[in-house]
């Protein structure tokens, strides 16, 4: 292994029991070419300051736990490499737009609450039991939803979305993409139920097509595309409701 070089990692610190305001702390970290930002944080925790707090788990970009801002960009720290920042310092901060719990850890509760609202599970037209066997679904039909099913809930898209930053009740990119994932699944019949939420004040119309969500997604999900594929459906849904209400109104 080559001799380690030194990089300065500047981490945001905030302890809810002690600090009134967040501040930044600099650490000098020896690193090798294969070391990720996550491994830099782990080095600090093991050797320099055991109180530095951050989330991680799988180390292979699939659990979605290690999202943070690195030099202002939302990334997964496990697949962001220190070599790409040296000799400049690398600044590591918690994901934008979420309340900080401590240091680099943010509170994901808002995302989890919103996920629940869109009924992100298969709602079949008819109940089926295992003895009926699997549904038939061709590879072509799978293509309709496979991309959006790859979401790892890492929340990078929320940190990138200017609309979520401005309008806290916006369901946001990942939740709307997951709603689309089930709407687009040939086995599902729950679209009407989801459209009520997707077409509401916090739904698809909150998206102004900036597209940052799709740029930062580490899994190629394209939430912006998914959201905008649902705008015609949402518009039709609105029109249908208007017509239905028109029928019941006396002119």
């Amino acid at each position, binding site marked *: *292994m080559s001799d380690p070089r030194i990089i300065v990692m500047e981490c945001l610190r905030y*302890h*809810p*029991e*002690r600090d009134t305001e967040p501040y930044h702390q600099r650490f000098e970290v020896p690193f090798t070419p*294969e070391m990720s930002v996550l491994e830099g944080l782990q080095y600090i*925790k*093991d*050797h320099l*300051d*055991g*109180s530095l*707090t951050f*989330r*991680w*788990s*799988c*180390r*292979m*970009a*699939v*659990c*979605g*736990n290690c999202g943070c801002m690195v030099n202002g960009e939302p990334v997964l720290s496990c*697949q962001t490499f220190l070599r790409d920042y040296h000799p400049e310092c690398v600044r590591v901060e918690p994901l934008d737009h979420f309340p900080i*719990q*401590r*240091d680099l*850890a943010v509170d*994901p509760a808002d995302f*989890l609450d919103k*996920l*629940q609202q869109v*009924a*992100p*599970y*298969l709602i079949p037209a008819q109940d*089926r039991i*295992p*003895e009926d*066997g*699997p*549904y*038939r*679904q*061709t*590879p072509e*039909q*799978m293509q309709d939803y*496979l991309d959006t*099913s*790859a*979401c*790892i*809930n890492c929340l990078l898209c929320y940190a990138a979305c200017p609309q979520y930053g401005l309008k806290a009740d916006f369901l946001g990119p990942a939740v709307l993409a*997951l709603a689309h994932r*089930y709407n687009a*699944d040939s*086995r*599902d019949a729950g679209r009407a139920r989801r459209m009520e939420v997707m077409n509401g004040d916090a739904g698809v119309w909150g998206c102004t097509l900036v597209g940052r969500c799709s740029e930062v997604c580490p899994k190629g999900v394209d939430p912006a595309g998914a959201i905008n594929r649902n705008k015609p459906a949402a518009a039709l849904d609105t029109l249908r409701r208007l017509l239905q209400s028109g029928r019941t109104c006396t002119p």
Partner: protein
Amino acid sequence: MQTIDTDVVVIGGGGAGLRAAIAAAEADPEVTVALVSKVVPTRSHTVAAEGGAAGVIHPDDHLDKHFDDTVSGGDWLCEQDVVEWFVGRCTPEMTQLEHWGCPWSRQPDGQVNVRYFGGMKSPRSWFAADRTGFHMLHTLFQTSLKYPSIRRFDECFCMDLLVEDGRLRGVLAVYVPSGDSLLLRCRAAVLATGGAGRVYRQNTNAGIVTGEGMGMALACGTGLRDMEFVQWHPTTLPGSGLLITEGARGEGGILLNRHGRRYLQDHGLGPVDPWPRPRAMELGPRDRVSQAFWHEDRAGRTLSTPQGTAVHLDLRHLGHKTLEERLPQILHLARTFAAVDPVEAPIPVRPAVHYTMGGVPTDRHGATAVEGLYAAGECASTGLHGANRLGSNSLAELLVFGRAAGEAAVAHARNGPAPAPGVERQAEAALRQWHALLEPRRGERLATLRDAMQAAMEDGVGIVREAEGMARACEALADLRARYRRGVRLDDTGRAFNTEWLATLELGHALKVAETIAHAALARRESRGAHLRSDGYDRRDDEGFLCHSLAWDQGEAPPRIDHAPVTLTRSAPGERVYGGPA
């Protein structure tokens, strides 16, 4: 301390825990279920499983083949009645998951596709590209949101199982973000906390796979069974241990030594042709393929990389299109973490610790020796895997036994006694003990003790073992436990989001679990499955050791090891034959 009464507590939000919670909710919507997980469930390690989940559906396959592959793969240490029960329930569970939306990969006509894994007579692995665990976990998590009786406690760390007179009475936990404690008084609990791969340095496991669930069960008297059987996955990235799925070989990938030779033909898995064929060469079982690497390494026929020796996994002949379609995550992992494009070049790989075959002994319904306590998934030892787990059986296990344990817990909760008063005192006492870990101002750093534990396990209880090395590991672990008791000096002494404190708690359990592995290994004077000895015990000894090992907690002293019989129903121990002509 906050106190909540609930009927069933599920500890762990991975595949087994979620399946148990859903089964409990479906069995009786009136039963209240608390799902306690130290991470948001979608962060659980099930997410990292790549290749597949076993279930007989291919026209050439049969439940008897699944049984035979599992029992011979496990070197006849499997509980055969459990295996029989298991194989019949895999396919309905896979189908159930399909009905919940799991995107299993399909054939052109829309039927579910299956592929070969190592040690299989017929293609049997249901897969969702190479993100099978990810899709299973997210399908289960999202489906769990349908059930109002499941109350989630995300990022809530279980610290203790509260047992009195051999009966489970409650679960003590701490909310990670606030550090506030929580007592869940319950009638039944399902332990679904995963394995203990992190007691080794080079492993495929997520950082959370630290074994404290096994440790807590051990401490309350369940014992741990067959802990010496640790699985090394043959193909992981050197250094990091990141997993390169067996599915890569299922699709036709080959392994080459530094001379470009398919060396598995020299280790009882050949001949090479015809290729591919089941149960031969690269489709041998994991124990044999990892052991072959060890021999190649000793003979100097491996490659050197900056992160240690390796062999080549060559996928180039599969072609870009197949790789993109069947193994997209492998492409991403190799490109990102090994700077290798598998389309253009072979991937350097070596074995790393992957799975603990042993665990908390249970029957097929997940019941443990403690009344009201059930276990499922990697933390449990149902007896399914024997001495070597077959690839794809663990994802199936999560579903089959997660469901069984959830249903059994509900049945117990319905008939069991109400949450008993008095458990609060027990909880307070336990909590004082864990809070005391925050106090030492002296002692060693957590990382020092953790690294020493991992080094002791790598050195002494590796792929190939001998008495002297195992004894050295036992001594090192006893010494580490003594040092741990003298105090771990924490930089972080607050309560809120104190991951250093929680990691210290994990380490205390991990040290004890590591001890059960080392001592059970030393006591097994034979070679069987993943337990291979080089010191004169290099053969299987059915007269002496066709038996499970059991490790019992002895407080501060090392565990006591004894042995118990194996249930054989219809398959007499025979020779494990892999390779040979087609």
